[in-house]
Each structure stands twice: as C-alpha cells, then as structure tokens.
C-alpha cells in the first residue's frame, strides 16, 4: 500500500460563501464510502486567512498575507489516503466532491 496526499481545490468565491457551514452531505457520503482508505483529512479556512512564511535566504523569514500562489482555485482541504497504486488513488480522487478538482501527490517513503 502507498500513501497519497489528495489536495482539494475549489473556487475562491465558493469557498468564501461556504464559510462556517457544516460539512456537506456529498463529503459525508464520500467519507462513509471511502472511510477505510482515508487516513486523515481536514477542511481549510479561506485562503484570505492563510499566511506564508518564506525563508529570505539570510537566516530570516519574510511573512506575508495569503498563500504562496494566488489563483482563482484555492486549496480547500486535504485527505491523506492509502491505496494499492496510483490507479486506485486516482479513482478515490475522482470521487472527492471537490468544486474545481483535486491533486494527487504520492507521499515520499523515508526508509
């Protein structure tokens, strides 16, 4: 089995509207169905509440408001999943009721 991080992207405008709402039934259904494959996960606050900390290369940090990359699609949440291979991980990824879509990243195995 391999671990994958599923990053959930949604429209920034939609994300702001959904703020404070309880979890949607679509996500509840997804989690009921795929429970055994989901190791962890969370929904995020809108990107306007995020803060970036970038190393300035001189031992210090530069702290800025917002995510590294501003875009119409914003990170809305994530799941850490376990799957036999990329095909299964993509299958699970397709079932996430994400507004825009998801990215599926293999998690590095450190031996």
């Amino acid at each position, binding site marked *: 089995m391999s671990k994958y991080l599923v990053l959930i992207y949604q429209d920034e405008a939609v994300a702001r509207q959904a703020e404070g709402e309880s979890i949607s039934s679509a996500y509840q259904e997804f989690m009921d169905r795929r429970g055994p494959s989901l190791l962890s996960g969370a929904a995020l606050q809108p990107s306007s509440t995020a803060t970036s900390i970038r190393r300035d290369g001189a031992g210090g940090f530069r702290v800025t408001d917002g995510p590294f990359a501003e875009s119409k699609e914003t990170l809305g949440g994530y799941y850490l999943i376990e799957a036999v*291979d990329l095909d299964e991980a*993509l299958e699970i990824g397709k079932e996430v009721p994400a507004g825009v879509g998801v990215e599926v990243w293999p998690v590095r195995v450190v031996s």
Partner: protein
Amino acid sequence: MPQAASSEVAAAVADAHRREWAFVLAATVRVAGDIDTAEEAVQDAYASALSTWGARGIPRSPGAWLTATARRRALDIHRRAATARRALPKLLEPEAYIPDEPGWEAEEIPDDRLRLIFTCCHPALSPDARVALTLRLLCGLSTADVARAFLLPEATIAARVTRAKKKIAAAHIPYRVPAASELRERLDGVLSVVYLVYTTGHTAPSGENLMRRDLAERGLELARMLRVLLPDDGDVAGLLALVLLTDARSGARLDEHRELVLMQNQDRSKWDRSAITEGVALLRDALQRRPPGRFALMAAIAAVHDESNSWSETDWQEILGLYDLLQERWPSPVVKLNRAIALGFAVGYAEGLAELDALGAEPQLARYPYLAAARADFLTRLGRFDDARVAFQEALILTENDAERHYLQTRLSGLSS
C-alpha cells in the same frame, strides 16, 4: 551447438532486438520489480548474446534465451544492490524466480507487453513522455534515436524519460492491464500514442525529409503488436487498418527528385496493393462494431482513396459523409479542415472555400500551414490568382518541412508565370 559466423550472429541479435525487445523487457520487469533494473538487465542480455551465440550457436528461440538471461541478470543486479540499497520504491514486488541456465528451448513465459505499453501510456504521464517512453521501452530505441526522430536535443529526451520513470516508481503507476471498466478509455490513450508515432514518421513536422521511415515503421510495428495482443478489439483493428491504408501510399509521395507529390498527382500503380488489401480486411472487421470508432472512420476515408482508380473518380460524397460522422463524435479543428476540403470536391470549390475561410477564426488552425495551402489550392481552382498567391505565401511562412515548402514554392511560381 555449432559455432556461428560473427556476421550471422550480429544479424540475429539485431533481428532479435527489433522483434523481441518489448517481449524480453516486459517479461523482465516482473522479476526486476522496476523498469530501470529491467532495462539494464535486458541491455546486458543483448550484449552477452553477441558473444555467447558466436561460441555456442544461435538458439532456436532467441526471445526465450534473451528473457532467461535478462531475468538472471536482473537478480544479480538486485543481489548487488541489496548491499548498497537504494530507497526507490518498487513498481511491483519482484516475483520469486528461480533461474535455470538460459533456455535453448522455448519455455512458458507470460507475455507482459500489454502491461508495459499501458504503463508507458498512463494518463498520469505527460503526452510527450508517453511517446518517448513507448519508443524507448517498447521499440528499444536509444535516447539518441528518440531525440533524432523528434529533432530535439538528446538531453531533453533523456530528462523526459528519467522524469517519467521516476514518476512511475514514486507514484506507483501500476504495471498491469486496466480493468474492463476503464479499458476503453485507457486503450484510446495507447492507440493515440501509437498513431502519433506513425504520423510523426509519415509527415515529419519539420526538417529536410518529408518522411522518417524508421519512425513510421515503428508505428506500424506497434499497431501490429497491439493487433496480436488484442485480436478481438475493433479500435485496435481500426488503428492498424488506418496505418496500413495510409502507409500504402507512402511509396508514391516523393518523385525521383525527392519532391512532394500530392495524392491527386500520385502514380497509383506505386501504391502498395497488399497493404491496401490487408487494411481493407481489417477495416471490415472494425466496422462490424457499432458505432465505429475514430480510427475506423479515418481508415474508411483512407480506404475510399486507396480503392479509387483516379483522383477524378474519387467518391467525394462518401468521404464527406465519413467526415460528417467523424466531426459529430470527435470534433477537432483538423477534422473540420479536412471536411471543408472534401466539401469543396464533393459540392463545389466556392462552397469549400467559404468553409475554409470560416475556419481562419479557429485559434488552433491560425498557424496551421495546411489551412493556408488548402485555401491557396481552391483559390487557384477558382481562378482567383492574386488571392491564391497571398495564401501560398502564408503557407510558405508557416510550413517547417522542406519538401512541403519546396512544393508550395513550385505552385507559387507556377502562378506568377
């Protein structure tokens, strides 16, 4: 075993490289557990074939001998690596395998070539990488050969292949034939890669030669391989039919001065009749399935041309109808362009030209030399020579293939005189 002459051995090894590479590599991946180790082992096996076959004679089944040797070699590499263990994740758990002496008789080896091609053409890999990997792993082309075929620096192809292999290993892209539920979609991806290999060879997008025969032949071989592995699949039959029916005309596309000859002026006695016969039989097979697939429809269009005695006797109504079907289910700017040309010959040049003019707004066709060339041709036929001249000049600016450029230049000077 009798000794074999070195020229005979070299020929046998070269032949086995061409015929058996994919089979040997695919069977070795199972034992090696990852593509890199398998490739290294297979390369070693081919190298040792040169010396061993010279001393002991050429085995009756070169593929079986090479597979057994490559599998043993893969195990050696693993033993060595066990001491200096690399942390790369495995494509699959290596199968427990007890090697025999490399077999001189054919043994039962599973044919894993389908797994290999589905892995190489996985949708999680970039389209460029799928093509490069397929040529490298299924056809056994060196990185330098792939680079030459696409007129790209070798370093670009090497980086592309390395990156793709890393992703296969790190993301656990599986080494298997997809389940029935996703087979259609995934197979379409494989067929597209094979067709792209063929068309890149058939009309080189740039450079001094119109065709790169070696690449076109690899495309044909891949299509044949898929037909052997999936004999009951209509889309596979359609692709092989399309490649054969297109390739049948390749011998007539250049004249004795190596200048481009358009289909309308080709010497049809130079067309390869046996390829046409084979292609048409495959097409019948493909068209039995309803609805017909994309490649079968394109093959049907090629067949109308191939079976026509002359350009003037071509059944343009039939071709137009086939393009209508194609456009309905697989619309694309290039299909629209070809449909407009068919319309010009089926109905009238003015009608065809009107369609072509409308396509000028398609962003994907804005820099496509064949649109300007088709407009120039219809304008000439309509006697609008000044407009035709401008269109030929536009096509000349856009084309990057020397043979095509020379053809356009000739047409343009013909207008001026």
